[in-house]
Protein backbone atom coordinates (compact mmCIF):
# COMPACT_ATOMS: atom_id res chain seq x y z
CA UNK A 1 0.00 0.00 0.00
CA UNK A 2 1.36 3.37 -0.97
CA UNK A 3 0.57 6.54 0.88
CA UNK A 4 -1.53 7.52 -2.13
CA UNK A 5 -3.53 4.32 -1.58
CA UNK A 6 -3.89 5.12 2.11
CA UNK A 7 -5.15 8.61 1.43
CA UNK A 8 -7.54 7.37 -1.25
CA UNK A 9 -8.96 4.78 1.14
CA UNK A 10 -9.49 7.35 3.85
CA UNK A 11 -11.18 9.76 1.50
CA UNK A 12 -13.36 7.13 -0.09
CA UNK A 13 -14.55 5.97 3.32
CA UNK A 14 -16.41 9.25 3.73
CA UNK A 15 -16.89 10.52 0.19
CA UNK A 16 -17.25 9.63 -3.44
CA UNK A 17 -13.82 10.38 -4.86
CA UNK A 18 -13.29 11.45 -8.46
CA UNK A 19 -10.00 12.19 -10.11
CA UNK A 20 -9.85 15.68 -11.58
CA UNK A 21 -6.22 15.75 -12.73
CA UNK A 22 -2.98 13.88 -12.23
CA UNK A 23 0.67 14.13 -13.09
CA UNK A 24 3.31 11.51 -12.43
CA UNK A 25 6.83 12.64 -13.32
CA UNK A 26 10.15 12.05 -11.64
CA UNK A 27 11.09 15.64 -12.39
CA UNK A 28 8.77 16.73 -9.60
CA UNK A 29 11.65 15.51 -7.43
CA UNK A 30 9.38 14.46 -4.61
CA UNK A 31 9.83 10.74 -4.78
CA UNK A 32 9.81 9.36 -1.28
CA UNK A 33 7.24 6.61 -0.67
CA UNK A 34 7.20 7.69 2.98
CA UNK A 35 6.10 11.24 2.46
CA UNK A 36 2.69 12.55 1.45
CA UNK A 37 1.50 16.14 1.39
CA UNK A 38 -2.17 16.99 1.24
CA UNK A 39 -3.31 20.44 0.19
CA UNK A 40 -6.71 21.76 1.19
CA UNK A 41 -7.64 24.88 -0.73
CA UNK A 42 -9.89 27.87 -0.14
CA UNK A 43 -12.85 27.33 2.16
CA UNK A 44 -13.98 30.93 2.75
CA UNK A 45 -15.84 30.06 5.90
CA UNK A 46 -18.07 32.78 7.34
CA UNK A 47 -20.45 32.93 10.28
CA UNK A 48 -23.98 31.62 9.89
CA UNK A 49 -25.26 35.17 10.01
CA UNK A 50 -23.07 36.25 7.11
CA UNK A 51 -23.70 33.05 5.15
CA UNK A 52 -27.42 33.92 5.07
CA UNK A 53 -26.62 37.09 3.14
CA UNK A 54 -24.99 35.29 0.22
CA UNK A 55 -26.23 32.89 -2.40
CA UNK A 56 -22.99 30.93 -2.17
CA UNK A 57 -20.68 29.77 0.59
CA UNK A 58 -18.54 26.96 1.86
CA UNK A 59 -19.97 23.71 0.55
CA UNK A 60 -20.30 20.58 2.67
CA UNK A 61 -18.64 21.43 5.98
CA UNK A 62 -19.66 18.11 7.50
CA UNK A 63 -17.90 16.29 4.71
CA UNK A 64 -14.89 18.52 5.13
CA UNK A 65 -14.80 17.75 8.85
CA UNK A 66 -15.13 14.03 8.08
CA UNK A 67 -12.20 14.25 5.67
CA UNK A 68 -10.07 16.03 8.24
CA UNK A 69 -10.87 13.47 10.91
CA UNK A 70 -9.91 10.64 8.55
CA UNK A 71 -6.66 12.37 7.62
CA UNK A 72 -5.83 12.90 11.29
CA UNK A 73 -6.37 9.19 11.84
CA UNK A 74 -4.08 8.36 8.94
CA UNK A 75 -1.46 10.69 10.31
CA UNK A 76 -1.68 9.15 13.76
CA UNK A 77 -1.13 5.68 12.28
CA UNK A 78 1.75 6.77 10.06
CA UNK A 79 4.55 6.73 12.57
CA UNK A 80 7.87 7.16 10.88
CA UNK A 81 6.29 8.53 7.72
CA UNK A 82 5.47 12.10 6.88
CA UNK A 83 1.85 13.12 6.42
CA UNK A 84 1.78 16.88 6.00
CA UNK A 85 -1.53 18.75 5.81
CA UNK A 86 -1.62 22.25 4.39
CA UNK A 87 -4.51 24.67 4.21
CA UNK A 88 -3.60 26.85 1.28
CA UNK A 89 -5.17 30.12 2.46
CA UNK A 90 -8.59 31.78 2.58
CA UNK A 91 -9.63 29.40 5.30
CA UNK A 92 -11.86 32.15 6.68
CA UNK A 93 -13.47 34.88 4.65
CA UNK A 94 -12.97 37.91 6.84
CA UNK A 95 -13.39 40.21 3.89
CA UNK A 96 -17.02 39.18 3.42
CA UNK A 97 -17.63 38.65 7.12
CA UNK A 98 -16.71 42.10 8.33
CA UNK A 99 -16.58 45.23 6.18
CA UNK A 100 -14.82 47.22 8.90
CA UNK A 101 -11.15 46.30 8.60
CA UNK A 102 -10.31 46.94 12.24
CA UNK A 103 -13.05 44.54 13.36
CA UNK A 104 -11.99 41.63 11.16
CA UNK A 105 -9.79 39.94 13.69
CA UNK A 106 -12.62 39.82 16.18
CA UNK A 107 -14.89 38.54 13.44
CA UNK A 108 -12.67 35.48 13.17
CA UNK A 109 -13.85 34.38 16.61
CA UNK A 110 -17.46 34.72 15.50
CA UNK A 111 -16.83 32.44 12.55
CA UNK A 112 -14.91 29.88 14.58
CA UNK A 113 -17.64 29.70 17.22
CA UNK A 114 -20.30 28.98 14.62
CA UNK A 115 -18.59 25.83 13.31
CA UNK A 116 -17.23 23.91 16.28
CA UNK A 117 -17.04 20.49 14.64
CA UNK A 118 -15.10 21.68 11.64
CA UNK A 119 -12.85 23.88 13.75
CA UNK A 120 -12.08 21.05 16.14
CA UNK A 121 -11.20 18.87 13.19
CA UNK A 122 -8.94 21.32 11.41
CA UNK A 123 -7.22 22.65 14.54
CA UNK A 124 -6.74 19.15 15.89
CA UNK A 125 -3.26 18.68 17.35
CA UNK A 126 -3.20 15.26 15.72
CA UNK A 127 -3.82 16.69 12.28
CA UNK A 128 -1.39 19.56 12.89
CA UNK A 129 -2.49 21.38 9.79
CA UNK A 130 -0.31 24.20 8.48
CA UNK A 131 -2.09 27.35 7.37
CA UNK A 132 -1.29 29.98 4.80
CA UNK A 133 -2.69 33.47 4.83
CA UNK A 134 -4.95 34.19 1.87
CA UNK A 135 -6.23 37.45 0.52
CA UNK A 136 -9.54 37.02 2.34
CA UNK A 137 -8.00 36.32 5.73
CA UNK A 138 -4.72 38.22 5.71
CA UNK A 139 -5.98 40.25 8.70
CA UNK A 140 -5.41 37.17 10.86
CA UNK A 141 -1.69 37.94 10.73
CA UNK A 142 -2.30 40.73 13.22
CA UNK A 143 -3.68 38.37 15.83
CA UNK A 144 -1.17 36.49 18.01
CA UNK A 145 -3.23 33.29 17.81
CA UNK A 146 -2.54 33.19 14.10
CA UNK A 147 1.02 34.54 14.14
CA UNK A 148 2.33 31.16 13.05
CA UNK A 149 0.40 31.26 9.79
CA UNK A 150 2.72 31.61 6.89
CA UNK A 151 3.03 33.23 3.48
CA UNK A 152 4.53 30.10 1.97
CA UNK A 153 5.89 26.69 2.85
CA UNK A 154 8.79 25.10 1.13
CA UNK A 155 8.46 21.45 0.20
CA UNK A 156 11.85 19.74 0.22
CA UNK A 157 11.93 16.05 -0.71
CA UNK A 158 12.52 13.79 2.23
CA UNK A 159 16.13 13.83 3.34
CA UNK A 160 17.01 16.99 1.41
CA UNK A 161 17.22 20.57 2.54
CA UNK A 162 16.70 21.91 -0.96
CA UNK A 163 13.04 22.47 -1.72
CA UNK A 164 11.67 21.18 -5.02
CA UNK A 165 8.27 22.72 -4.46
CA UNK A 166 6.56 25.56 -2.68
CA UNK A 167 2.99 26.19 -1.64
CA UNK A 168 1.61 29.73 -1.70
CA UNK A 169 -1.93 31.05 -1.76
CA UNK A 170 -1.47 32.39 -5.26
CA UNK A 171 -3.18 35.76 -5.08
CA UNK A 172 0.08 37.50 -5.96
CA UNK A 173 -0.32 36.26 -9.52
CA UNK A 174 -3.62 38.06 -9.66
CA UNK A 175 -2.05 41.45 -9.05
CA UNK A 176 -1.08 41.98 -12.66
CA UNK A 177 -2.91 45.25 -13.06
CA UNK A 178 -1.04 46.85 -10.25
CA UNK A 179 2.16 48.85 -10.67
CA UNK A 180 4.97 48.70 -9.87
CA UNK A 181 5.27 45.00 -10.43
CA UNK A 182 4.01 43.67 -7.10
CA UNK A 183 5.64 40.27 -7.45
CA UNK A 184 9.04 41.88 -7.71
CA UNK A 185 8.16 44.32 -4.99
CA UNK A 186 7.17 41.60 -2.56
CA UNK A 187 9.43 38.84 -3.80
CA UNK A 188 11.51 38.82 -0.63
CA UNK A 189 8.39 38.84 1.51
CA UNK A 190 7.09 35.73 -0.17
CA UNK A 191 10.22 33.74 -0.80
CA UNK A 192 13.07 34.76 1.47
CA UNK A 193 13.74 31.83 3.79
CA UNK A 194 14.50 34.19 6.67
CA UNK A 195 12.36 36.63 8.47
CA UNK A 196 13.92 40.02 8.51
CA UNK A 197 13.35 43.30 6.81
CA UNK A 198 11.01 41.50 4.49
CA UNK A 199 8.47 41.21 7.25
CA UNK A 200 7.97 44.91 7.08
CA UNK A 201 6.28 44.40 3.75
CA UNK A 202 3.27 42.83 5.36
CA UNK A 203 1.47 46.16 5.67
CA UNK A 204 2.21 46.93 2.06
CA UNK A 205 1.00 43.50 1.00
CA UNK A 206 -2.19 44.10 2.93
CA UNK A 207 -2.63 47.44 1.18
CA UNK A 208 -2.31 45.72 -2.19
CA UNK A 209 -4.71 42.98 -1.12
CA UNK A 210 -7.24 45.54 0.08
CA UNK A 211 -6.99 47.45 -3.16
CA UNK A 212 -7.41 44.28 -5.18
CA UNK A 213 -10.33 43.04 -3.10
CA UNK A 214 -12.01 46.42 -3.24
CA UNK A 215 -11.95 46.31 -7.01
CA UNK A 216 -13.76 42.96 -7.04
CA UNK A 217 -17.38 42.17 -6.33
CA UNK A 218 -18.03 39.13 -4.19
CA UNK A 219 -21.77 39.65 -4.09
CA UNK A 220 -22.77 36.67 -6.18
CA UNK A 221 -19.55 34.75 -6.70
CA UNK A 222 -15.82 34.70 -6.17
CA UNK A 223 -14.38 32.23 -8.62
CA UNK A 224 -17.57 31.18 -10.36
CA UNK A 225 -18.19 27.69 -11.68
CA UNK A 226 -15.02 25.60 -11.91
CA UNK A 227 -14.61 23.83 -15.28
CA UNK A 228 -13.04 20.54 -14.30
CA UNK A 229 -12.88 18.74 -17.62
CA UNK A 230 -13.10 14.96 -17.63
CA UNK A 231 -13.43 13.53 -14.14
CA UNK A 232 -13.65 9.87 -13.29
CA UNK A 233 -14.09 7.75 -10.25
CA UNK A 234 -12.08 4.59 -10.76
CA UNK A 235 -8.96 4.27 -8.67
CA UNK A 236 -6.74 3.78 -11.72
CA UNK A 237 -4.65 6.89 -12.16
CA UNK A 238 -2.97 7.70 -15.46
CA UNK A 239 0.43 9.37 -15.54
CA UNK A 240 -1.06 12.44 -17.06
CA UNK A 241 -4.70 13.28 -16.86
CA UNK A 242 -6.47 16.49 -17.63
CA UNK A 243 -3.41 18.71 -17.81
CA UNK A 244 -4.67 22.12 -18.79
CA UNK A 245 -3.69 25.70 -19.15
CA UNK A 246 -3.48 28.28 -16.43
CA UNK A 247 -3.13 32.02 -16.76
CA UNK A 248 -0.69 32.00 -13.83
CA UNK A 249 1.63 29.32 -15.25
CA UNK A 250 4.27 31.55 -16.84
CA UNK A 251 4.28 34.02 -14.00
CA UNK A 252 4.61 31.22 -11.45
CA UNK A 253 7.42 29.62 -13.44
CA UNK A 254 9.32 32.90 -13.72
CA UNK A 255 8.87 33.53 -10.03
CA UNK A 256 10.10 30.06 -9.13
CA UNK A 257 13.17 30.53 -11.33
CA UNK A 258 13.94 33.81 -9.61
CA UNK A 259 13.54 32.16 -6.20
CA UNK A 260 15.85 29.35 -7.27
CA UNK A 261 18.51 31.84 -8.20
CA UNK A 262 18.08 34.03 -5.16
CA UNK A 263 17.78 31.41 -2.46
CA UNK A 264 19.52 28.30 -3.80
CA UNK A 265 16.31 26.37 -4.23
CA UNK A 266 15.35 23.84 -6.84
CA UNK A 267 11.68 24.60 -7.32
CA UNK A 268 10.04 22.47 -9.99
CA UNK A 269 6.45 22.88 -8.92
CA UNK A 270 4.21 25.29 -7.13
CA UNK A 271 0.96 24.53 -5.31
CA UNK A 272 -1.64 27.26 -5.16
CA UNK A 273 -5.29 27.86 -4.37
CA UNK A 274 -7.03 31.22 -4.77
CA UNK A 275 -8.76 30.64 -8.13
CA UNK A 276 -11.04 27.83 -6.87
CA UNK A 277 -10.64 26.09 -10.24
CA UNK A 278 -8.73 22.86 -9.70
CA UNK A 279 -6.27 21.98 -12.44
CA UNK A 280 -2.67 21.10 -13.18
CA UNK A 281 -0.79 23.15 -15.75
CA UNK A 282 2.55 22.03 -17.06
CA UNK A 283 5.47 23.62 -18.81
CA UNK A 284 7.54 20.82 -20.26
CA UNK A 285 10.31 21.79 -22.63
CA UNK A 286 12.09 18.48 -22.04
CA UNK A 287 14.78 17.62 -19.53
CA UNK A 288 15.07 20.11 -16.72
CA UNK A 289 12.92 22.64 -18.51
CA UNK A 290 9.99 21.53 -16.43
CA UNK A 291 7.57 23.30 -14.16
CA UNK A 292 4.18 22.24 -12.84
CA UNK A 293 1.54 24.53 -11.39
CA UNK A 294 -0.86 22.64 -9.19
CA UNK A 295 -4.00 24.60 -8.48
CA UNK A 296 -5.89 22.60 -5.90
CA UNK A 297 -9.24 24.35 -6.31
CA UNK A 298 -11.62 25.24 -3.51
CA UNK A 299 -14.54 24.31 -1.30
CA UNK A 300 -17.17 26.76 -2.42
CA UNK A 301 -19.42 27.44 -5.40
CA UNK A 302 -19.88 24.68 -7.94
CA UNK A 303 -18.01 22.78 -10.59
CA UNK A 304 -18.92 21.16 -13.86
CA UNK A 305 -17.23 18.35 -15.75
CA UNK A 306 -16.68 17.83 -19.48
CA UNK A 307 -20.16 16.31 -19.81
CA UNK A 308 -21.84 19.23 -18.13
CA UNK A 309 -22.53 17.36 -14.90
CA UNK A 310 -22.61 19.70 -11.94
CA UNK A 311 -20.92 19.02 -8.63
CA UNK A 312 -20.27 20.91 -5.47
CA UNK A 313 -16.78 22.31 -5.82
CA UNK A 314 -14.88 20.32 -3.17
CA UNK A 315 -11.34 19.48 -4.15
CA UNK A 316 -7.96 18.76 -2.65
CA UNK A 317 -4.52 17.78 -3.93
CA UNK A 318 -2.33 14.89 -2.82
CA UNK A 319 1.41 14.63 -3.56
CA UNK A 320 3.60 11.60 -2.97
CA UNK A 321 6.12 9.53 -4.93
CA UNK A 322 6.43 12.07 -7.76
CA UNK A 323 2.72 11.72 -8.33
CA UNK A 324 0.31 14.57 -7.73
CA UNK A 325 -3.44 14.09 -7.94
CA UNK A 326 -6.40 16.38 -7.52
CA UNK A 327 -9.57 14.79 -6.24
CA UNK A 328 -13.14 16.00 -6.26
CA UNK A 329 -15.13 14.84 -3.22
CA UNK A 330 -18.89 14.39 -3.00
CA UNK A 331 -21.28 12.82 -0.58
Amino acid sequence: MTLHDDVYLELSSVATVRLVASLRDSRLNFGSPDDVRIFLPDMHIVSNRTRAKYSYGTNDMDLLADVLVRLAGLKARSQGRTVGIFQVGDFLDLWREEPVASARVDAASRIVMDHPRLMNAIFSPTLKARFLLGNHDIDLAWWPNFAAWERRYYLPPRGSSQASGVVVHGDMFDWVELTPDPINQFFVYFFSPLFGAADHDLNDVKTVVNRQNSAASFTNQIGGTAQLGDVFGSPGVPDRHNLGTHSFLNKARDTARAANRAYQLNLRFMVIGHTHHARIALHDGGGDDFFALIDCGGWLEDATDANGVHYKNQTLAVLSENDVRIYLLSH
Partner: protein
Amino acid sequence: MSKEVAAVGMCLALASLACTHEPPATHPKVDFVAVAPADFRSPCSGDVLPTRESACPPLPAPTCSASSPVPPPPPGRPAAHGYSLPLGADARATLLLFLGAGGRNSNLEEGLGAQIPDAEKRFGPLLSEIAKPQQFRPMFEQGRYRAWFPDPPLHNVIDAREEQTPLNGCLPYAFRASGFEWIFKCDAKGELGELIVQKDWNAVREGMKP
Protein backbone atom coordinates in the same frame (compact mmCIF):
# COMPACT_ATOMS: atom_id res chain seq x y z
CA MET B 1 3.24 90.42 34.13
CA SER B 2 3.62 90.29 37.90
CA LYS B 3 6.21 88.03 39.50
CA GLU B 4 3.38 86.02 41.09
CA VAL B 5 1.71 85.36 37.75
CA ALA B 6 5.00 84.42 36.17
CA ALA B 7 5.76 82.05 39.03
CA VAL B 8 2.35 80.40 38.77
CA GLY B 9 2.79 80.09 35.03
CA MET B 10 6.19 78.49 35.51
CA CYS B 11 4.77 76.05 38.07
CA LEU B 12 1.92 75.11 35.75
CA ALA B 13 4.36 74.54 32.92
CA LEU B 14 6.58 72.36 35.10
CA ALA B 15 3.56 70.49 36.46
CA SER B 16 2.36 69.96 32.94
CA LEU B 17 5.73 68.55 31.94
CA ALA B 18 5.83 66.34 35.00
CA CYS B 19 2.37 64.99 34.31
CA THR B 20 2.85 64.27 30.66
CA HIS B 21 2.33 60.63 29.69
CA GLU B 22 4.71 60.84 26.78
CA PRO B 23 8.30 59.98 27.62
CA PRO B 24 10.90 62.39 26.31
CA ALA B 25 12.25 61.56 22.90
CA THR B 26 15.48 60.29 24.37
CA HIS B 27 13.76 57.86 26.74
CA PRO B 28 15.25 54.43 26.10
CA LYS B 29 12.90 51.85 24.68
CA VAL B 30 12.15 49.17 27.23
CA ASP B 31 12.54 45.85 25.57
CA PHE B 32 12.90 42.29 26.69
CA VAL B 33 13.32 38.79 25.42
CA ALA B 34 10.89 36.19 26.64
CA VAL B 35 11.95 32.57 26.53
CA ALA B 36 8.88 30.99 25.06
CA PRO B 37 7.82 27.76 26.66
CA ALA B 38 6.11 26.50 23.52
CA ASP B 39 7.25 25.25 20.14
CA PHE B 40 10.81 24.64 21.26
CA ARG B 41 11.12 21.48 23.23
CA SER B 42 14.06 19.86 24.77
CA PRO B 43 15.52 16.75 23.19
CA CYS B 44 16.10 15.66 26.78
CA SER B 45 12.51 15.95 27.90
CA GLY B 46 11.20 13.01 25.97
CA ASP B 47 10.30 14.83 22.79
CA VAL B 48 11.73 13.44 19.61
CA LEU B 49 14.22 15.44 17.65
CA PRO B 50 15.80 13.78 14.65
CA THR B 51 19.49 13.37 14.30
CA ARG B 52 21.56 15.05 11.65
CA GLU B 53 21.57 11.94 9.50
CA SER B 54 17.85 11.71 9.08
CA ALA B 55 15.03 14.15 9.47
CA CYS B 56 12.47 11.39 9.72
CA PRO B 57 10.73 10.69 13.02
CA PRO B 58 10.47 8.61 15.03
CA LEU B 59 14.05 8.40 16.11
CA PRO B 60 15.57 8.07 19.53
CA ALA B 61 16.10 11.38 21.22
CA PRO B 62 19.70 12.57 21.07
CA THR B 63 21.62 11.90 24.22
CA CYS B 64 22.36 14.94 26.32
CA SER B 65 25.98 15.74 26.55
CA ALA B 66 27.43 14.38 29.76
CA SER B 67 29.26 17.63 30.22
CA SER B 68 26.05 19.61 30.17
CA PRO B 69 25.58 21.45 33.44
CA VAL B 70 22.13 22.58 32.35
CA PRO B 71 19.51 20.26 33.80
CA PRO B 72 16.75 19.09 31.50
CA PRO B 73 13.33 20.60 32.14
CA PRO B 74 10.82 18.49 34.03
CA PRO B 75 9.41 15.68 31.90
CA GLY B 76 6.28 16.57 30.00
CA ARG B 77 6.73 20.29 30.53
CA PRO B 78 7.42 22.03 27.26
CA ALA B 79 10.39 24.28 27.64
CA ALA B 80 13.09 25.94 25.68
CA HIS B 81 16.26 23.99 25.80
CA GLY B 82 19.60 25.47 26.71
CA TYR B 83 22.81 24.19 25.23
CA SER B 84 26.03 24.23 27.18
CA LEU B 85 28.71 26.58 25.95
CA PRO B 86 30.91 26.12 24.15
CA LEU B 87 28.64 24.15 21.85
CA GLY B 88 29.37 20.48 21.46
CA ALA B 89 29.11 18.72 18.11
CA ASP B 90 25.70 17.20 18.91
CA ALA B 91 24.33 20.52 20.05
CA ARG B 92 25.63 22.25 16.95
CA ALA B 93 24.00 19.67 14.69
CA THR B 94 20.68 19.84 16.52
CA LEU B 95 20.68 23.62 16.52
CA LEU B 96 21.43 23.67 12.82
CA LEU B 97 18.48 21.38 12.15
CA PHE B 98 16.27 23.57 14.29
CA LEU B 99 17.39 26.73 12.49
CA GLY B 100 16.94 25.07 9.11
CA ALA B 101 13.42 24.10 10.09
CA GLY B 102 12.61 27.76 10.50
CA GLY B 103 12.71 27.59 14.29
CA ARG B 104 9.88 25.12 14.62
CA ASN B 105 10.39 21.80 16.26
CA SER B 106 7.13 20.58 14.79
CA ASN B 107 8.60 20.86 11.30
CA LEU B 108 11.35 18.50 12.43
CA GLU B 109 9.09 16.17 14.32
CA GLU B 110 6.86 15.67 11.30
CA GLY B 111 9.67 15.43 8.79
CA LEU B 112 8.37 18.39 6.80
CA GLY B 113 11.90 19.37 5.91
CA ALA B 114 13.94 22.51 5.78
CA GLN B 115 12.40 25.92 5.40
CA ILE B 116 15.81 27.61 5.36
CA PRO B 117 17.65 25.56 2.74
CA ASP B 118 21.08 27.06 3.26
CA ALA B 119 21.11 27.00 7.05
CA GLU B 120 24.63 25.62 7.16
CA LYS B 121 25.90 28.49 5.03
CA ARG B 122 23.95 31.10 6.98
CA PHE B 123 24.48 29.85 10.50
CA GLY B 124 27.33 27.36 10.32
CA PRO B 125 30.15 29.88 10.80
CA LEU B 126 28.39 31.45 13.79
CA LEU B 127 27.75 28.07 15.40
CA SER B 128 31.37 27.09 14.80
CA GLU B 129 32.48 30.28 16.48
CA ILE B 130 30.22 29.58 19.44
CA ALA B 131 31.71 26.11 19.63
CA LYS B 132 35.14 27.56 20.45
CA PRO B 133 36.14 27.71 24.13
CA GLN B 134 36.03 31.33 25.14
CA GLN B 135 34.69 33.87 27.62
CA PHE B 136 31.62 35.15 25.83
CA ARG B 137 31.00 38.30 27.82
CA PRO B 138 34.30 39.99 26.90
CA MET B 139 33.89 38.76 23.34
CA PHE B 140 30.52 40.53 23.11
CA GLU B 141 31.91 43.64 24.76
CA GLN B 142 34.78 43.73 22.28
CA GLY B 143 32.34 43.45 19.41
CA ARG B 144 33.71 40.19 18.12
CA TYR B 145 30.21 38.95 17.27
CA ARG B 146 29.02 42.15 15.67
CA ALA B 147 29.09 40.62 12.21
CA TRP B 148 26.37 38.21 13.30
CA PHE B 149 24.68 40.33 15.94
CA PRO B 150 24.79 43.90 14.66
CA ASP B 151 22.18 45.26 17.09
CA PRO B 152 22.97 46.03 20.71
CA PRO B 153 22.32 43.20 23.16
CA LEU B 154 19.32 43.02 25.45
CA HIS B 155 19.84 41.95 29.03
CA ASN B 156 16.22 41.78 30.08
CA VAL B 157 15.51 38.08 29.66
CA ILE B 158 12.34 36.62 31.12
CA ASP B 159 12.55 32.87 31.23
CA ALA B 160 9.19 31.21 31.72
CA ARG B 161 10.88 28.10 33.10
CA GLU B 162 12.25 29.91 36.13
CA GLU B 163 10.43 30.74 39.34
CA GLN B 164 12.08 34.16 39.26
CA THR B 165 14.90 35.94 37.55
CA PRO B 166 18.16 34.72 39.09
CA LEU B 167 19.66 37.53 41.17
CA ASN B 168 23.26 36.44 40.93
CA GLY B 169 24.68 39.58 39.38
CA CYS B 170 25.22 37.88 36.05
CA LEU B 171 23.58 39.67 33.15
CA PRO B 172 22.42 37.50 30.29
CA TYR B 173 23.03 38.65 26.73
CA ALA B 174 20.29 38.34 24.14
CA PHE B 175 20.56 39.24 20.48
CA ARG B 176 17.93 39.40 17.79
CA ALA B 177 19.27 38.55 14.37
CA SER B 178 18.11 36.81 11.20
CA GLY B 179 14.69 36.07 12.61
CA PHE B 180 15.95 34.31 15.72
CA GLU B 181 16.67 35.25 19.28
CA TRP B 182 20.07 34.13 20.56
CA ILE B 183 20.06 34.12 24.34
CA PHE B 184 23.28 33.61 26.24
CA LYS B 185 22.34 32.82 29.83
CA CYS B 186 24.35 32.51 32.98
CA ASP B 187 25.30 29.17 34.42
CA ALA B 188 25.82 28.26 38.06
CA LYS B 189 29.33 29.70 37.95
CA GLY B 190 28.03 33.10 36.88
CA GLU B 191 29.44 32.78 33.36
CA LEU B 192 27.58 32.93 30.08
CA GLY B 193 27.45 29.18 29.86
CA GLU B 194 24.11 28.40 28.25
CA LEU B 195 22.68 29.23 24.83
CA ILE B 196 19.01 29.25 23.88
CA VAL B 197 17.94 29.92 20.31
CA GLN B 198 14.33 30.53 19.46
CA LYS B 199 12.29 31.97 16.67
CA ASP B 200 11.93 35.72 16.99
CA TRP B 201 8.20 36.20 16.93
CA ASN B 202 8.83 39.82 17.75
CA ALA B 203 10.34 40.23 14.29
CA VAL B 204 7.10 39.01 12.80
CA ARG B 205 5.04 41.37 14.91
CA GLU B 206 7.36 44.30 14.16
CA GLY B 207 6.55 43.84 10.52
CA MET B 208 2.87 44.24 11.22
CA LYS B 209 3.02 47.63 12.86
CA PRO B 210 1.04 50.16 10.89
